[in-house]
Every structure is written in structure tokens, then in C-alpha cells.
């Protein structure tokens, strides 16, 4: 304790620098927490490094994921001699972020007229599509609605993105265990009593409660491997518009050889910025496909955390799988058991004459509740309608195939 009295100014200074460093790394550290920490340190022998470490950690970290980053920062910061430290030295950490991944270029833009750089530099990109839309006649739009995403030209792509943003998404609701006042079957005793006071203990008017309904949680697993490349760009826009369009949290994951969670990256008002963040976060664009392995990572690491409360899972993939088939079988079964409804969206299902004959698709189909196309705007509209209709009752689990319109 004595040592802190004498050099407390210096120590406090360092502590605040450390807090700033953590904030720079993306940890949720604010002045309030720092004050708590200073308060807490009065009770702890600061000379004992382990105690000091645990004190700081228990107050400044509240996500398990952040612990390794905190540890690194802690070791680095508190081992070096403190005298020379300035905020500038913290630029050592400049390259490190809370989620550290290799910087990889976004998937290649195919057939897009204007490269995205122009969009960023010039006027806001949102200006462009409306102009285009004015020039679209009704029949143009009809053609566009049914056109396969893979065959779009640059102009059409922009128009589609705009139309996509206008789709209305709503998810089927689930009866929760919570009740609210309303004309339901349960009796609301509290309100009943209040209402019947005036009758002197005679119950003449009953007040009721009814269950509260909430939209089901939505989890999306999207394939961004090489075989899906033609669809990837629009797929990302679709994921973004879905995450933005629903007023609930949508858990989104991308996979090709590895699984990446992009839920946090997709948040934000600006589509282009969100998608840039996504492309930085994913390290294996257009890689091979190991659906089984990706599903396993999901089931083991995330399933329990995001599949509660009757979640609906959208699995978007063409089913070209070069991984272990038995693993795929096992993990599909597990995934279906753990969710309320498993919807497989396949862009190839839109092409005439497509049969789901690939090994991966054959293995997975028995575990899929709904098998739907996702290749054109009209198929997205159908999907939107389908999601609204996911109600309380689920059909017996067996393979069903919806034929593309």
C-alpha cells in the first residue's frame, strides 16, 4: 500500500493509459469503470501481480472472448518499464484489434459497371439506384424479378440491390411464456380485483391476460465458397438487408472452409461500410466447401448460444461439398434437432432441370424442413412470404421439396 502512496500519481497515470489502450483495442472500458477500478485497488495488494491482474480483469473485462486480448495487453503494458510510455507507444498495438484476422480483399466484383472505389469517392452510393429505377418500366422490372442472379449485368445488379432493400421481412411468431393484458384465457387477478372493488367483494367483471407473441430468432449460415462465387456479392446484400430489415437480432455466419460469425459486422446503417467490414472479417472467400465441418463448428461453438427459443435456421448453399459426408450427415441431424425449422436455400434450385444429386445435397436433404430456391428477386419475395407463415405448428419432419416458380 505504501508504495502506491508515494508514486500514486505515476501509477494512476499508467492505469489510465492502460484503460485507454484497452478501449483502443475495442474493449468496453469507460471512465466509470476506471473509477471503480481505482476504488477497488484500495482493497488489493497491488504489489501482488496476480491479484492486481485479476482485479483489473474482473472489472474491465466482461466478455469471455476478450480475455485473451486483455491478457496480451496486460503482459505487454505492465512488463515494460513504465517511465517512457506515452500514448504514442501504444501504436505498437495499432494493428491489433479485438477481432484480429488477416486482411483479405473482398470477393471479386463480377460484371459490375462501376468499381466500388468510385462509389465511395463520389456522391453517396444511395443516389444511384433510384435514378435507375425511374428508367425501369413495369415489364423491365418483371423480367428483372425473375432473372437469375448469376446472369445480371452491372446496371441490373444495382437495380436489384435497390429492389432488395425494399423487400419487407417479417418472421413467423412464437408464443412466448410471457403474458400481457388482453382478451385471453388466463385471468388477470390483479386487475380483476381492482375492477371489482366497487362491487364490494363480488366479482362481476373479469380481467384477462393473453400470451405475448414474439418473432422467432433467425440464424443464417451462408456458403461463400468458390462454387457460390457468382452469387456471393448479392448474397451479402441480401444478408445485410435481412439484418437491417428485421427489428430483431439476426445471427449471421459465413462459411467455406471455416466458419466466421459476421453478426456484429453486419450492423450499421451504411450497407457498403458494413459489407467492407464483413469482407475484412472473412479469410476464406471462395475457398473449398466443407459444409459438415462448418456445421460442426457452429453446432459445438454456437448452437447452444443462438438456437434457443425456437430459432429458424436458413442454410444458404448450392450443396457442392468436398468434405466428409458422414460428418455432414451427423451435423445436419444435430442442427435440425436443435432448431425449430431448418430451411435450405439453394440458388441452383431455380435453374430448370436442376436435380439435387450432388453428394452433399443428397446427404443433407433428409434433414431439411423446407428446400427453396434463392436465385432471383421473385424467389426472395416467396421466401419473405414463407418466413411470415412459419407459425406455431410445424409439419411432421420429413423431406419436402418446393418446386421453383
Amino acid at each position, binding site marked *: 500500500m505504501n508504495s502506491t502512496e508515494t508514486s500514486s500519481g505515476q501509477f494512476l497515470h499508467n492505469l489510465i493509459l492502460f484503460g485507454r489502450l484497452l478501449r483502443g483495442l475495442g474493449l468496453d472500458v469507460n471512465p466509470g469503470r476506471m473509477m471503480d477500478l481505482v476504488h477497488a485497488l484500495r482493497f488489493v495488494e497491488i504489489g501482488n501481480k496476480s491479484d492486481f491482474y*485479476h482485479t483489473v480483469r*474482473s472489472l474491465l473485462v466482461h466478455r469471455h472472448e476478450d480475455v485473451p486480448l486483455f491478457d496480451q495487453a496486460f503482459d505487454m503494458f505492465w512488463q515494460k518499464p513504465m517511465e517512457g510510455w506515452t500514448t504514442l507507444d501504444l501504436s505498437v498495438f495499432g494493428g491489433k484489434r479485438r477481432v484480429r484476422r488477416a486482411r483479405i480483399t473482398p470477393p471479386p466484383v463480377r460484371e459490375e459497371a462501376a468499381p466500388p472505389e468510385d462509389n465511395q469517392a463520389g456522391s453517396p452510393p444511395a443516389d444511384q439506384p433510384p435514378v435507375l429505377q425511374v428508367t425501369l418500366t413495369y415489364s423491365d422490372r418483371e423480367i428483372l424479378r425473375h432473372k437469375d442472379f448469376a446472369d445480371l449485368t452491372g446496371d441490373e445488379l444495382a437495380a436489384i440491390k435497390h429492389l432488395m432493400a425494399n423487400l419487407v421481412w417479417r418472421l413467423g411468431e412464437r408464443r412466448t411464456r*410471457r403474458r400481457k393484458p388482453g382478451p385471453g384465457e388466463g385471468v388477470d387477478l*390483479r386487475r380483476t*380485483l381492482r375492477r371489482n*372493488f366497487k362491487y364490494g367483494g363480488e366479482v362481476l367483471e373479469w380481467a384477462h391476460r393473453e400470451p405475448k407473441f414474439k418473432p422467432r430468432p433467425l440464424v443464417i449460415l451462408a456458403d461463400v465458397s468458390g462454387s457460390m462465387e457468382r452469387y456471393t456479392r448479392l448474397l451479402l446484400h441480401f444478408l445485410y438487408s435481412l439484418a437491417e430489415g428485421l427489428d430483431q437480432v439476426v445471427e449471421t455466419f459465413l462459411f467455406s472452409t471455416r466458419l466466421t460469425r459476421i453478426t456484429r459486422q453486419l450492423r450499421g446503417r451504411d450497407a457498403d461500410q458494413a459489407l467492407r467490414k464483413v469482407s475484412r472479417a472473412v479469410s476464406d472467400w471462395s475457398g473449398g466447401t466443407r459444409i459438415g465441418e462448418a456445421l460442426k463448428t457452429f453446432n459445438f461453438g454456437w448452437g447452444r448460444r443462438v438456437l*434457443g*427459443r425456437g430459432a429458424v435456421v436458413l442454410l444458404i448453399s448450392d450443396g457442392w461439398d468436398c468434405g466428409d459426408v458422414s460428418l455432414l450427415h*451427423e451435423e445436419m441431424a444435430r442442427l435440425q434437432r436443435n432448431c425449430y425449422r431448418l430451411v435450405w436455400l439453394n440458388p441452383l434450385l431455380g435453374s430448370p432441370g436442376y436435380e439435387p444429386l450432388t453428394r452433399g445435397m443428397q446427404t443433407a436433404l433428409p434433414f431439411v424442413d423446407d428446400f427453396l430456391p434463392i436465385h432471383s428477386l421473385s424467389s426472395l419475395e416467396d421466401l419473405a412470404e414463407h418466413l411470415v407463415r412459419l407459425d406455431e405448428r410445424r409439419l411432421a419432419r420429413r423431406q419436402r421439396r418446393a418446386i421453383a416458380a
Partner: protein
Amino acid sequence: MTYNSIDELQQALRSQLYVADRGLATAIFLALKLGRPLFLEGEAGVGKTEVAKVITQLLDTDLIRLQCYEGLDVHHAVYEWNYTRQMLHIRLLEARGEHAAEAELFGPEFLLRRPLLQAIENTRDRPRVLLVDEVDRSDDEFEAFLLEVLSDFQITIPEIGTLKAERPPFVVVTSNRTREVHDALKRRCLYYWIDYPTFEKELEIVRAKVPHAPAQLARQITGFIQELRQADLYKIPGVAETLDWTAALVALDQQALEPSIVDETLGVILKYQDDVQKVKGEHVKAILDRIRVGS
């Protein structure tokens, strides 16, 4: 009872048969000192709930437990009026030709106190321990409410007014992470992630909790479970499973682990059929060989 150092607390925890890491002891110590809630996260069966029970013992006070579930509302978590009694009271007064005054009907004698209110309305001279168990099972609505209670330790009942805790309870919140708990709630608390214990620590726990288990058996069980946690399982066994298994094998009068008996009792530690299938037979033998070499 107050503890002046982390060492002292760690000793005290040990005396109550709870083997705590230095980190956990620090978090508990600080939570006690700062009067902050303690938020414990970790896989199932690592002893999160146990912390609250042990602290209750240490503080020599009562434990108030609130088990969370979806749809948990104010009437089940905080208070409810005793409607039947209220009705009867009105009838009784009517029969006597009197009229019930509202203030009388909504007095303390008609109030049913649920866990949160019990914890706040403490008339004893020492703070109680409030365990909010498995908060991840509750829903957003309850979480928001809990946030309010934990920040001010006060509860407002419209008919009575605001009740503020004179001696705020020591709060332990646990979560199994089946859902992300909102950051705002965690921010109010001291956070600690309880990990699976190391071999030495787990052995110490087994010895403390099942003292009559043969020493060799305890070592083997701990070694086996430690190895099993490295395997590719959907649900990894926790410390609770280790203890259950030890108790089971002691009940079966086992002195050491044998492949056949392990296979037969796998259901005590593995709760998914896929996992049991994966481990049974060869895998069990392999692990047993490995731990025999080690010990």
C-alpha cells in the same frame, strides 16, 4: 464476517470445501468489498451456483434463490398481492356492514414477497445472499428489470411506494451462455469466467467432496475426466459430473477404473448418445492406458 485479504477468503472458501482459483477468490473478495454483484459465467457444472451457497455459509446468512426461466415476471420474481385474502377481507368487512379502505387492502399483510423483494426487504442485521441463477434462461424483459433492481437495490410497488434496501444483498448472477446476456447487465457486475479446473485442482475438489473415495480411484477418475475433456465431444463433462461419477463408483465399491465398469457408467458423465457412442469401448481403453502410464 469480513475478510481482510484474498488469502484469508481463499482459506475460508477452502474450509467450506470449495476450491477456488486465485482469480475467482479475487473476484469474490472485490464483490464483497465493493458491494457489487458477481456475474459468473462458464460451462454447465463448473460450480457457479455453488459459489453463492458457499458465500452464504461464510457470511452465515440466508440464501435467496431466484431460478430464471422464460416469462419470469414481476409477480413471480418480486411480489404479488394475495388476492384471495384481499377478497375475503372485503367480504368480511361487508358482512359487518363496514367498507374496506384501499390503503388497508394493500397493506403489508396482503403482500406475497417473492425472492427479489425478500432480498431487498431485509430486516436482519446482516446482508443476505441473492442468487439469480441461469439468467440466460430469462428473457429481455426480465433482464431489463433486473438491471434496474441491481443498480439501485430498490423496488417500487405502486400501492406502497419505493422500498430501498438498507443492507443490500450480496448478489451472484450465473449464466450458462445459452444466450448472450446484454452487456448493460454485465457492466454492473464483476465478471468472472469459471473454467474447467486443472488436474490438481480437480483432484483436490474430488478429495474434499468425496472424502471416502479411495485415493487411487480419485486420481484415476480425475485423470480420465481431464483426458475426456480433450476429446471431441458435444457436451464436455463438468466438475459436477466428476463428483457424481466418483460417488457412483464408490457406491459400486470400485477401487480402480476398469474398462467394463467405465463403459457401464458412462451415462453418469456423458449426456448425449452420440458422445457415449464415440467414447465407449476403444476410446475408453485408450484413455485408461494413457492415465495408467501417467500414474
